[in-house]
């Protein structure tokens, strides 16, 4: 599955408080969290963003708190994936676990411009800026992780795998 969308650019150190302020954390409902995604960085972001759009940011994206509400909010706002120069440690794990694909590329993060149309192939890690007609290379996402992301995150993935196993077991018994 390729990702294709318009780019919204953000700077360095976009922290989890900016991604989803604590004043909204008495809920963990994705829809509610999505409504406030990146509100303190750009109050109109949620109004402007379209389904499938891509966030491109600088260094240390997702720094700060361990709140999983941050990748949940980004996904729920309709963002398909995030490209950054680098990601903070806890956010990296949380994003994968929540099924939000993320790509690290210093060059792509620096050169891609706001509004560009960008396509990403997770299998090859190739990031294509169709507006600039330029290609960048990020680490590809390994197949098991693509599967996990496609399923909607670690838990949905585990449930699917377990369900499959149980069904196979039941079949063998028959």
């Amino acid at each position, binding site marked *: 599955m390729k990702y294709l969308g318009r780019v919204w650019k953000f700077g360095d*150190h976009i*922290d989890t*408080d*900016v991604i989803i*302020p*604590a*004043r909204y*954390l*008495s*809920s*963990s409902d994705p829809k509610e969290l999505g409504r406030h995604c990146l*509100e*303190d*960085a750009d109050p109109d972001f949620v109004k402007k963003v379209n389904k499938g759009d891509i966030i491109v940011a600088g*260094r*240390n994206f997702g*720094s*700060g*708190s*361990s*709140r*999983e*509400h941050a990748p949940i909010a980004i996904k729920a706002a309709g963002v398909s994936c995030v490209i950054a120069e*680098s990601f*903070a*440690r*806890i956010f990296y*794990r*949380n994003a994968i*676990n*929540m099924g939000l694909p993320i790509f690290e590329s210093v060059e792509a993060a620096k050169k891609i411009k706001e509004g560009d149309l960008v396509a990403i192939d997770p299998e090859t890690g190739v990031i294509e800026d169709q507006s600039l007609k330029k290609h960048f290379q990020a680490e590809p996402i390994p197949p098991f992780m693509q599967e996990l992301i496609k399923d909607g*995150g*670690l*838990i949905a993935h*585990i*449930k699917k795998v*377990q369900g499959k196993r149980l069904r196979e077991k039941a079949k063998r018994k028959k």
Partner: protein
Amino acid sequence: MMSQTITEKILAAHAGLKKVRPGQLIETRIDLALANDITAPIAMEVFYLAGGKKVFDPKKVVLVPDHFVPNKDIAAAEQCRKMRLFSQEQNLLHFFDLGEMGVEHALLPEKGLVLPGDLVIGADSHTCTYGALGAFASGMGSTDLGTAMITGRTWLKVPESIKLVYQGKPKPWVSGKDLILYTIGDLGVDGARYQAMEFTGPSLAAFSMADRFTMANMAVEAGAKNGIFIPDDKTLIYVREHSKKKGKIYCSDSGAEYREIRHYNLGEIEPQVAFPHLPENARPISKVGKVSIDQAVIGSCTNGRLEDLRIAAKVLKGHKVAKGVRLIIIPATPWIYRQAMVEGLFDIFLEAGGVISTPTCGPCLGGYMGILAKGERAIATTNRNFVGRMGHPESEVYLASPAITAASAVLGSIGPVEALPGFKKMKGCKK
């Protein structure tokens, strides 16, 4: 045998391996799994969705509703109720409901729940605080925590270590907070990304456990996976006072490998203030200039310990908070609260015109109990000064030590203790 750091040794021991190397992916057992009222509800959902029936050990799963407690609104009350029910169902030994509840990272060491050599994961980024005890402790998300509650295990990438060596005698009023702000100022907020920060050097022997908790607490503000101290006499005394168990003492080998070693001379470190909107924007107090404030907050998992309140009281004694400044003091645990009261610190705070809150994370993360309006400015002993962290996105937070925060509350603008009227009669904070 290959030389190893303290972090590598603890990870190897918990993974059942003789040694580990940086970059290696390991599966380890955990000694403790922690979550709070923001992260536990999701972790509990994950627990059930992943097929969890019983937690791996009801003594080793700790739940602390501290962020929005006493319940700030209906939604927060519902989240706490879920935790309460889960704790009952799972017979959790360490569910700290209101009355026993304190700010988690001050509470767990006080209750003797973390020992040297332990491996602790918590669904809270400041879990790294426990590194002060010579434990490996790191923050994760709720999903990782929810699955660890079932299995008692997790996977980790072994971090490289950065060695930070502190030498020389501290200047008056310099605390652990000043050292860590200075260090983050030097490293940058992603300078230790994915790394272990190992705090060492002859100067640290004189710093209290409270100071060390403060330093390890903010390792994550430099992007680190964990912060850690080698246990010494002070650690052993602290552990003896708080637990019947001893834990396991690990030290770094002399030939252990570090990605980087940085030296800091305490003779050059003044009290620090981190300007908005990043903890790395640290400046010495002499270079702050005129910054007027509307609010001063003393508390949090970074600086809400008894030693912090004692220093604040020492500075505030005989003074009044400047007109127009709101001083909020939040003892981090019920024990600290009571002890501060017994020691007469409350009288000093109230006399100065401050207010005292029950233990809670409250304003630190913009929850409640001291939210800032548009354009307002606070000085705080907390750990983050991100955009909107304590309230309105156009408010500002300046991070500092309890001494500087207390002094600034009296001065009405950020300033040193020495600027207080009648300062000469006061003694510096003794190390």
